[in-house]
């Protein structure tokens, strides 16, 4: 019987990978910033399933909230569409 | 309080970090910044000389003995971060502090920027941590901080070209830093430890059976990080760009950092990966390429700081040649050359700083005729050119002569030809720059009569004189430093 946290882990891996690929193929930069936040969050939960909860919390704050925030400010200050 | 054990090596890293944080906070209050900067310069200059030699264990955890009933391979295991502080480290850190204080003092005039001084302090702290640390992850952390501080010093210039250089440097630095971290992750996953001495013992035991593929991949990844930090061949363009876009006095400081980090990081990767057969040949090839390309590009430049930057890159390549030959004589000669050449290049960068103050430009086509306008500076910079291109009474002659003789003894007679031609080409490039700045005639600003009133900083000239005196002293009595370097090289134990 496969433990539940491993199923969650597979889902998070899938989310991280496809979030990153989708973020790179977006033309709209705001969408790609949101997808980067999704990827950071998925990696944070993946840290949690890999028995490193402290790193998970830090990654959730820095990688999933602060970093997309700075990216969003950058997109807001520059242009939104990729030329 | 126990004063005997107060000046530990960790203070050499901790003090500049603390002072950088304080300077950041008091940015804007000019007099406070000035006083604090002056104080921290004095302390930073003094600290290497009063720190005790020896090994420093963070947290007071020295080593643990073999645990009963477990299968730990080592008889002794370091538990925390370890710093080594010997005579070579003392020389390196003292020179770094000297050039950093020169970089601060040259711009110590009306308004002193707190953040700018803080970044130079950060540079001292990170470079001295890389020089002393015996722990792979600590080195990664401080290499990243070094990248940030160098980029910040480039940003401080404030032009769009500087921003472009800085963002290129940061992106490449981020990728190269990640490459180092991936190499560390592979080492950690395979051996479960981070201390270089412990890893050295384990890898020595393991390599009697055979070199594993994981070790080779880790070597390749950390080697790429070494290439970036030392400005070897694919990164010589961005490294010279960074030197030339920063202020010339900061350029003098940054090339010193690069040369010392090159040597320190090389010692660590050699201790880890000496078993791989093509490792030394790879370092030798990369160094020859960066030496030759650096000097060729120096010949083609029309901007004086860029010319000096490419010469600095080429001299770093010369240091790498000695390290790649990897005999005891060649390695000690090239560690000696790293020290000498950092001093000699600093003279030229500081003269560029004076020229920038006078003419406000660095383009060689727009300069000329400064010979009788700038006091005795042409004489000092001519002596500096002699020092960089390895002329006899100076210190670089001693070290380059030793590199050449070590190369021919080690069975690379072809290398000697390339090294000699490189130093000739360096001389040609620098004389070309000297001619364009001081001797060429017919520029508009000479007739405008503004030149007579343009002041330049006396302090820079004094620092140049001090550096020249050190160069001459080392050149006349090379054995005084070389004996310590030979002890250091034989203490590495794998050459």
């Amino acid at each position, binding site marked *: 019987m496969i433990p539940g946290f491993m199923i969650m882990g597979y889902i998070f891996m899938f989310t991280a990978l496809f979030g990153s690929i989708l973020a790179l193929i977006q033309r709209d930069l705001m969408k790609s910033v949101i997808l980067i936040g999704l990827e950071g969050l998925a990696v944070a939960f993946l840290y949690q399933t890999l028995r490193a909860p402290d790193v998970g919390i830090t990654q959730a704050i820095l990688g999933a909230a602060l970093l997309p925030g700075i990216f969003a400010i950058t997109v807001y200050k520059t242009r939104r569409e990729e030329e | 309080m126990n004063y005997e054990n107060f000046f530990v090596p960790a203070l050499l890293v901790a003090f500049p970090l603390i002072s950088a944080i304080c300077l950041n906070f008091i940015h804007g209050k000019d007099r406070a910044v000035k006083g604090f900067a002056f104080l921290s310069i004095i302390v930073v200059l003094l600290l290497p000389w009063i720190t005790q030699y020896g090994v420093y264990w963070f947290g007071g955890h020295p080593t643990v003995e073999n645990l009963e009933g477990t299968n730990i391979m080592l008889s002794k295991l370091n538990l925390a971060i370890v710093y080594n502080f010997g005579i070579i480290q003392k020389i390196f850190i003292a020179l770094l502090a000297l050039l950093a204080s020169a970089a601060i003092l040259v711009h110590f005039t009306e308004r002193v920027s707190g953040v700018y001084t803080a970044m130079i302090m950060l540079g001292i702290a990170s470079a001295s941590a890389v020089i002393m640390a015996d722990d792979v992850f600590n080195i990664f952390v401080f290499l990243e901080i070094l990248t940030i501080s160098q980029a910040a010093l480039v940003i401080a210039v404030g032009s769009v070209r500087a921003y472009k250089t800085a963002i290129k440097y940061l992106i490449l630095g981020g990728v190269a830093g990640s490459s180092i971290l991936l190499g560390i992750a592979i080492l950690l996953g395979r051996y479960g430890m981070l201390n270089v001495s412990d890893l050295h013992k384990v890898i020595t035991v393991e390599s009697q059976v055979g070199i594993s593929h994981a070790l080779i991949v880790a070597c390749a990844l950390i080697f790429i990080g070494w290439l970036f930090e030392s400005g070897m061949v*694919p990164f010589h363009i961005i490294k010279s760009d960074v030197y030339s876009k920063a202020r010339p006095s900061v350029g003098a400081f940054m090339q010193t950092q690069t040369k010392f980090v090159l040597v320190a990081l090389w010692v660590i990767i050699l201790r880890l990966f000496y078993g791989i057969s093509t490792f030394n040949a790879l370092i030798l090839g990369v160094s020859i390429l960066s030496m030759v390309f650096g000097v060729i590009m120096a010949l083609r430049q029309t901007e004086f700081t860029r010319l000096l930057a490419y010469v600095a890159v080429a001299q770093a390549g010369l240091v790498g040649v000695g390290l790649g030959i990897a005999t005891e004589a060649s390695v000690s000669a090239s560690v000696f050359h790293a020290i000498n050449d950092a001093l000699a290049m600093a003279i030229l960068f500081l003269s560029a700083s004076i020229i920038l103050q006078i003419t406000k430009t660095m383009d060689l086509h727009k300069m000329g005729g400064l010979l009788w306008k700038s006091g005795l500076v042409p004489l000092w910079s001519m002596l500096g050119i002699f020092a960089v291109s390895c002329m006899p009474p100076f210190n670089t002659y001693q070290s380059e002569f030793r590199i050449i003789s070590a190369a021919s003894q080690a069975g690379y007679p072809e290398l000697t030809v390339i090294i000699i031609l490189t130093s000739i080409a360096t001389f*040609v490039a620098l004389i070309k720059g000297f001619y364009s700045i001081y001797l060429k005639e017919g520029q508009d600003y000479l007739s405008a009569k503004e030149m007579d009133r343009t002041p330049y900083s006396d302090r820079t000239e004094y620092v140049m004189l001090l550096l020249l005196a050190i160069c001459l002293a080392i050149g006349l009595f090379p054995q005084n430093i070389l004996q310590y370097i030979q002890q250091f090289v034989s203490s590495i134990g794998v050459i």
Partner: protein
Amino acid sequence: MYEKFFEKIKQGEDIAGAFTGDYQMILLVSLGVLVLFRFFASTRFAMAAAFIALLVVLRALPLVFKVSKEHSDTFDSMLFYFALTIGLVIILLGGI
């Protein structure tokens, strides 16, 4: 070859530096081939190979302008050489 240099003189470029750089390139290529073949093959073969390399280089003169064209500050070329190096280093060290 003389004409190529003459064109560059007309464009106002510095020629003394270019000559020195060219000698450097010739020496680098021929001596580099010499060292490589001396270590991986016999000495006699190495001398022949170095001679051939010298001839090839002399036909392709002037090399300096090509080299300095590759050393541009554009980000693309930097990243290209970076990617090239990652591959080459792993191959040369004998992994994979």
